[in-house]
């Protein structure tokens, strides 16, 4: 036994990332008891969009009976940025309508509302696979697409998009088990209880992507979880997977920060881990993958931490997607009152909700109930530089703040605002209590809006120019036809003409003018260079639509 344990020894991380904070963990209170089982609430409110990308389209109608695990919304194109949605329990679709969804800016979105029948009856055709390595990587990916798996760490990026092998071969799989935000323990508890299945999930990803090496990054304040993983590795006798303990320092779980701590490599600006031969998955996502492949279960539930200073009990619970937060909080003795506030996510990156009338979605890792604190008066920035000292992206937050206030968006981009991961470290240390991240979000949205407006006007101008071109072409063609007729007539009459050549030259000139204008436009520098993967995807989609439209225009 001890030999085996040695072979899967836990390594300590050798590298560091810039800045960050040592925060009080507040994790023990929610780790006292094991993960509680799901409840089946009377009503499930399942949003059509719980992920980054396009919302899924309902494939059921109001009045339809649905079974647990049945696909209720999807998009046909499996490669697009979207995720399939399944019925979390059996029952009847009673409405498809807009409902408030948990989000930073109080959005509403279309939701499929299911009245459960209490039977919790599974779809019969659950396919389970014993040996995932017998499946091809395409098959595995297809199952993951159909299971509607998205990144469960918080961002909700569709997982299948990170399972595609592209030209550049991948050499390292990084599993993010850092769970660096205070209070949140859902990943740690899941590891403690399901380490074996998680390791299977890791093997599936390694197989699907044909990667030989895997690093699991876990913060060193979770000794039980890393021990569980270590045990699972030893029992299975796996040596390609290495557990690495990283110092507990927020935000060690940031993707680029974790990669730096684990490998010493800095993901270059505007690049993705993939460009460096790495791909990163959250550990809860890995578990979901294992469940989907080996048991045929789509993503219809997740583990949620319910905790906070003003809750009598705290713990982790498996929750069906679409369960109202009320139903969950009731189990933990939550009583609504005006002195407390509900946060989805952790205290650093989570957002405040005005009530518990929101469904649990795929990215809900934590519901945190905290006492309301009086917002502190923001004083002017005294440029003390604390924010720069703690910034994990090595930015100058106070300069970003000044330029955002001055609405100097070009300068804001010079100072690399799009490298900001909105971790909130600067907010936390600011002696003037300035809500800095809010300013950065504002600046980013403002820049995106301007980009979109510019795209729109570019589009309009292009269309206008194309129309001009078409009119000119038509004119030229008409003239040509006329000239031909005339020439024919003249030929008959024995008179030759050079008019045809003149017309041709005119067409040529018009074409050249348009081409020149287009190339000038292409040469104009765009400030869309620092977009994240999701933004780029979105823009690509818009671009594609525009092209299609342009083509249909041309065809007309």
């Amino acid at each position, binding site marked *: 036994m001890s030999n085996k344990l040695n072979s899967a020894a836990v390594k300590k991380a050798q590298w560091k990332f810039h800045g960050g904070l*040592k925060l009080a963990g507040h994790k023990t209170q929610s780790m006292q008891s094991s993960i509680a089982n799901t409840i089946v609430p009377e009503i499930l409110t399942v949003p059509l969009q719980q992920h980054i990308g396009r919302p899924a389209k309902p494939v059921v109608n109001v009045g339809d009976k649905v079974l647990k695990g049945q696909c209720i919304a999807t998009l046909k194109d499996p490669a697009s940025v979207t995720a399939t949605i399944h019925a979390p329990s059996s029952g009847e679709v009673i409405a498809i309508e807009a409902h408030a969804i948990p989000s930073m800016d109080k959005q509403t979105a279309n939701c499929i509302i299911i009245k459960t029948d209490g039977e919790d009856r599974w779809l019969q055709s659950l396919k389970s696979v014993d040996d995932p390595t017998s499946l091809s990587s395409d098959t595995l990916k297809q199952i993951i697409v159909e299971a509607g798996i998205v990144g469960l760490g918080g961002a909700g990026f569709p997982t299948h998009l990170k399972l595609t092998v592209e030209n550049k071969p991948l050499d390292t799989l990084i599993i993010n088990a850092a769970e660096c935000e205070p209070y949140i323990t859902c990943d740690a508890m899941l590891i403690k209880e399901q380490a074996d299945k998680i390791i299977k999930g890791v093997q599936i990803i390694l197989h699907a992507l044909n990667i030989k090496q895997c690093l699991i990054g876990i913060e060193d304040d979770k000794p039980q979880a890393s021990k569980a993983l270590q045990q699972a590795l030893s029992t299975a006798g796996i040596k390609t997977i290495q557990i690495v303990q990283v110092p507990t320092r927020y935000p060690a779980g940031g993707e680029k920060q974790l990669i730096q701590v684990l490998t010493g490599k800095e993901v270059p600006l505007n690049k993705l881990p993939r460009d460096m031969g790495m791909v990163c998955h959250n550990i809860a996502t890995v578990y979901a993958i294992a469940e989907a492949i080996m048991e045929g279960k789509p993503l219809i539930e997740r583990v949620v931490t319910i905790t906070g200073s003003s809750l009598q009990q705290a713990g982790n619970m498996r929750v069906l997607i679409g369960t109202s937060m009320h139903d969950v909080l009731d189990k933990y003795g939550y009583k609504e009152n005006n002195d407390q506030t509900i946060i989805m996510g952790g205290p650093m990156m989570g957002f405040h909700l005005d009530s518990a009338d929101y469904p649990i979605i795929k990215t809900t890792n934590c519901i945190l109930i905290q006492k309301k604190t009086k917002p502190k008066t923001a004083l002017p920035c005294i*440029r003390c530089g604390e924010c*720069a000292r703690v910034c994990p992206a090595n930015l*100058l937050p106070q300069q970003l703040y000044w330029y955002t206030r001055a609405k100097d968006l070009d300068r804001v981009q010079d100072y690399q605002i799009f*490298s900001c991961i909105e971790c909130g470290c600067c907010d*936390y240390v600011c002696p*003037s209590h300035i809500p800095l991240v809010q300013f950065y979000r504002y600046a980013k949205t403002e820049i995106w809006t301007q980009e979109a407006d510019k795209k729109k006007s570019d589009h309009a101008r292009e269309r206008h120019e194309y129309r001009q071109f078409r009119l000119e072409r038509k004119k030229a063609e008409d003239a040509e036809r006329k000239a031909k007729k005339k020439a024919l007539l003249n030929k008959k009459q024995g008179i030759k003409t050079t008019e045809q050549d003149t017309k041709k030259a005119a067409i040529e000139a018009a074409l050249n003018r348009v081409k020149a204008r287009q190339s000038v436009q292409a040469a104009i520098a765009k400030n869309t260079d620092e977009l994240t993967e999701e933004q780029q995807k979105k823009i690509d989609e818009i671009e594609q639509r525009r092209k299609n439209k342009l083509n249909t225009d041309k065809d007309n």
Partner: protein
Amino acid sequence: MDNTAPNSVTRIMLNVLYALVPGIIAYVIFFGWGVVINIIIAVITAIVTEVLMLQLRKRPIKPFIMDGSAVVTAVLLALALPNLAPWWLIFIGVSFAIIIGKHLYGGLGYNPFNPAMIGYALLLISFPLQMTVWLQPDNTLSFMQSLNYALFSTLNNIDIDAMTMATTLDTVKTQSGLGESFAAIQTSAPAIFGQFAGKGWEWINLAFLFGGLWLLYRRVISWQIPVAFLGSIFIMALLFYPSTGTTPLYHLFGGATMLCAFFIATDPVTASPTPNGRLIYAAGIGIFAYVIRMWGGYPDGIAFGVLLMNMAAPTIDYYTRPKAFGENV
């Protein structure tokens, strides 16, 4: 040390004030109560003008008074003034610092120049006579006598000239300007030289150094400014040691060197906020301070060094932006 406790402007300012205490005690031991009277008059002036300005600018009074920045400005200016200063000198300096140096630029956080140094520079230019009346060390003035002088500009039966003299820095500059060697100046005026720098001043500087190190330990200030400032003074003193005869120790522990290194140049609002920018900024102050101190027309060059580098700070910021994550790979 790490950031587990929430920070606040008040905490920063209070820490700065605490860290000044050892220096103030050393000052009192060597030069008597004059500096305490300076501080009292300065703080009262600062609070009154701050409240007045906040009211005129229709700003909430409580949070801005509680931030403590006005008091810090007042204390720093009081420490820089001669220890035998009439009340109106302090009043003019502090109110100018608060009204013109701070509020007319937009108040806390918006002033491009260090307010205390703006006040100091104004006084030095306008009242050169009063600004150079310094008590000699180990004088026998009581608190009441000092207060009497501050309020009525008289010492009753005491001959003021017998108790005051040019400072060490001033004497060295004047005498060496006349061609005397540093060693000769030291022997001719033993009353103003101590073990390794100006008498009294060397201990006051040591005490400020001690307070400053505590601020570093508390992470209220960052290391770049004191290190670059003291480093540049040291290098300048070393470079010019052969021609001036003044030792690096004499410069490091003379005049307001340590006060500037840890308390004045470190004013975050007017300094450069980038790590490399801070190095350049503080090294610049050190060079200016040395040059003016040795060859300029004023007793110490720190105030002008600070103000000159304040002007350069925005430009320094722009060229010293650190590379963002992933930018230099």
